[in-house]
């Protein structure tokens, strides 16, 4: 039982760290603010949710502690992180940040 839970915790932690690292590299390497926001808001959210789920399993198995705060935190991040990404992206578009040179389509250009 404890071996299974150890493997589960290790896998969740490594997956979370991998996704956080991928988000950081996306934020470094992608060309404009919209693609960077795409990388940051999706991958970082999945990474932090994996790590918090690993923490929840760790405290449940090793310390017999059912931490509802961690479950609440997972739900909170799942709800708010996409909203925050949407708000930043919309603020960037409305304050006139240019898209990447090779972008081919801008559906919002003729609205207003």
């Amino acid at each position, binding site marked *: 039982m404890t071996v299974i839970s*150890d493997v589960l915790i*290790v896998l969740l932690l490594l997956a979370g760290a991998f996704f956080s690292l991928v988000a950081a590299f996306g934020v470094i390497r992608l060309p404009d*603010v919209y693609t960077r926001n795409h990388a940051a*808001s999706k991958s970082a959210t999945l990474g932090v949710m994996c790590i*918090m789920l690993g923490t929840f399993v760790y405290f449940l198995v090793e310390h017999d502690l059912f931490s509802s705060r961690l479950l609440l935190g997972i739900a909170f991040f799942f709800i708010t992180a996409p909203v*925050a990404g949407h*708000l930043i992206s919309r603020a960037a578009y*409305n304050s006139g940040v240019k898209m990447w040179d090779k972008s081919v389509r801008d559906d919002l250009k003729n609205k207003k």
Partner: protein
Amino acid sequence: MIDLVLKLTLVLLAIAMLGLVYRLVKGPTTPDRVVALDAMGVNLVSIAAVLSMILKTSNFLDIILLIGIMAFLGTVAFAKFLEKGEIIEYDRDQ
């Protein structure tokens, strides 16, 4: 096994944090910096979770929720400031 993986995870999260600091310093526009700050808040939550496992205490789990709420509020305030020029609007000003 878990102790080693916890330290490895902490190192990987620190590398991710350094990459985000690079974007925060260099980012050509303000929304780039806001994106980097938001992702740094999310990474800080991961670091707090890993640290609470390393120190074997459950007292940091409130901090996780607190940092999450603060990061979201800060991002919303920044986005509203960039879009409208003010954060709290008054009807009487118009």
